[in-house]
């Protein structure tokens, strides 16, 4: 598996690398949401708000200090990344008390308000977030003398020169792997058990000595940190930090629902499932677009890749809820169980 991941950029063209990195961006955000929703049982539609917070914080921390239009602190990309994730976590912690008072669908609706808040703030704070028309250019990742764009120093792996797209892919893989390992640790440890206790029965959890408020807060903090990381990766992927012009943009309601779809399709609470869910929801439209060859002008196509993907993942959600509520992860377990017999 690791070998395959390492060898992908050797063969994949820039277009396929961008699909792979986009799936990872969604996967990281979905991992956070699956921990919040699947493990801790808190419905939150605010994932995209924290993506915005993460992206804006990174741009502000890493931006140049002498730019007249935008605020920047000139920190190194690595430090800015860490700080952006921490800031997203702090903002998540600010929202946590609301989670303490609400549950289920009411919490979902309340969290949706954050998305609209983000939409508004993005439009009134262009010095931080960039203008809604052209955004602000971010600082691409780099540690010391290793930079992504322009690619320095020149590295060649197995005869293939590693350009900006290949390097971006490797950085994303490393970040996703770290996120995965940490999430796995949280789920298996005390904090995960506390989440599951709160999810299954709050009164029983209190009796067992689990602080319900504490568990909910930690779930929000962790998931917003993951969403913040996903936000920074989004900014790197687009090479642009741009707040939305409409509610249907990168940080809007439809994306929040897309993350929810990823979690449901992949299996709530399953980390591998979040990545698979991201491959379906984020990856499928791009994969289909690249596979469908347009020869000349098509007159008013009804079934474009975008429409087909929406149909597919809509149908998948219905089928999953009807037949396998544990999602693709549940399907995976069933298949493995067949082999173990």
């Amino acid at each position, binding site marked *: 598996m690791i070998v395959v991941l390492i060898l992908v950029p050797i063969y994949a063209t820039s*277009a396929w690398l961008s699909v792979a990195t986009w799936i990872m961006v969604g996967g990281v955000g979905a991992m956070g949401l699956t921990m919040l929703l699947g493990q801790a049982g808190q419905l939150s539609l605010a994932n995209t708000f924290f993506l915005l917070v993460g992206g804006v914080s990174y741009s502000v921390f890493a931006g140049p200090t002498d730019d007249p239009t935008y605020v920047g602190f000139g920190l190194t990309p690595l430090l800015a990344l860490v700080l952006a994730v921490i800031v997203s976590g702090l903002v998540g912690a600010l929202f946590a008390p609301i989670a303490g008072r609400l549950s289920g669908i009411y919490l979902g609706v309340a969290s949706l308000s954050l998305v609209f808040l983000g939409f508004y703030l993005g439009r009134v704070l262009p010095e931080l977030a960039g203008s*809604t*028309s052209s955004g602000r250019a971010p600082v691409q990742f780099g540690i010391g003398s290793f930079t992504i764009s322009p690619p320095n120093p020149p590295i060649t792996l*197995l005869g293939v020169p590693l350009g900006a797209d290949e390097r971006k892919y490797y950085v994303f893989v490393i970040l996703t792997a770290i996120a995965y390992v940490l999430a796995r640790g949280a789920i298996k440890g005390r904090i995960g058990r506390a989440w599951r206790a709160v999810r299954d029965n709050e009164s029983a959890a209190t009796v067992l000595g689990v602080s319900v408020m504490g568990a909910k807060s930690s779930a929000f903090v962790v998931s917003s940190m993951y969403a913040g990381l996903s936000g920074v990766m989004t900014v790197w992927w*687009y090479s642009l930090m*741009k707040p939305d012009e409409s*509610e249907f943009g990168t940080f809007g309601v439809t994306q929040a629902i897309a993350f929810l779809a990823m979690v449901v399709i992949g299996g709530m609470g399953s980390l591998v499932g979040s990545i698979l869910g991201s491959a379906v929801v984020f990856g499928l439209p791009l994969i289909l*677009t690249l596979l469908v060859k347009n020869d000349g*002008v098509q*007159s008013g196509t009804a079934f474009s890749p975008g429409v087909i993907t929406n149909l597919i993942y809509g149908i998948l959600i219905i089928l999953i809820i009807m037949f396998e509520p544990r999602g693709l992860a549940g399907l995976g377990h069933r298949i493995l169980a067949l082999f173990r017999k």
Partner: protein
Amino acid sequence: MRKSTRAALVGGLAVALGVTGCSTKADSSSSGSGSGDVKTDIGITAKEINLGVLTDLSGVFKNLGLAYTAGNQLWADDVNAKGGVCGRQVKLDVADTAYKADTAVTLYASMKSKDAGIIQMVGSQILAALKSQITADNMLSIPASWASTNLDSDAVFMVGATYDVEMINGLAYLQKKGMLKDGDKIGHIYIGGEYGGGGLLGSQAYAKDHNQTVVEEKIASTDTDMAAAVTDLKSKGVNVIAVTTTPAQMASAATQAQAQGLDVPIVGNNPTYDPTLLNTPAKDALGKYYRSESLVPFSSDVPLAKEIAKKYATKYPNDKPNDAVDFGYASGIAYQAVLEKACSNKDLTRAGIVKAKSEVKVDVNGLMDKLDFSKPGQPSTRSTYIEQADPSAVGGLRVVQDLSESTEAKNYKTPFQK
């Protein structure tokens, strides 16, 4: 780790390393060859010039995207019939982004390895997402958006007048006809972003020259009801309403103004009109609407426009035409001029094409005024038609003032003008 698993891993690694030699990316010398005596790199072979079309064929701007692409294709067919450009046939690589920025980024990643440039790019958020990349990759791209704030990159090949210039010409026309006087109030309804912001730059510049005030009403692109904006403008006593919005929003503003008794002229940028509005209840409110547009209307008598209309009807009999077809064709003519200049410079590399663009002035045979790309940071033309809604005209518009450039537009400095 069990022995068999380890063996499998090692075997897999060995196979992978062996197969690596077949990786096409390991080839060191792929591009950078010359055919004949013209230097070329990506997207140009001895027989073909490949141009990308990054359009919207299934999303919100599908009607425009299909029409632009049809225009591009009609141009390509005509040029190829006459022997192509620089002895090579033009091939269009059409890709549908469905107006989504993430799809566009991925499609661009595949275009940059096979096309020499992009002849059509629909979507201002797509241009925003790709601007730094097209500049770095020297992909000369014609956007279907005309914000002067994008004129800072040489790779942006903007064909036509920018939104600010359109608005200035529109206001100048109203003043010429006595509908606007010095010291008046201009109410401007605009979408927050580079489109609305561009129009606003124009109205603000014009107002400054004429001691007028601009009352701003900022809206979002998804807002549908202009009642609040119009009420506010009426209470502030505006003499003219300027709109830089979608056609539906313009129609809402016009209907509201009529309903509230705000009987003032309305002047809008080129994207504010759609002939299908004449089939809606708004049709009775459009009597005082004027559009400022640098492109010829589809039904124009200009010989090339008539030829395009005829060829379009033959090739695409099932599709309803709009003037986006003419824009697609005009883009083709402009790109052809740049490619021919690059050819005579003996440099058809991407960098060479970008360089050639700033050396050309293009005559688009009446589809627009003569275009001048040699002045960095400035729009290629500052002349626009002024049109009015007309149910009896084909395409729903009649020209009330032919191509002209107002003095204010001539003297206006765009943000990146040197």
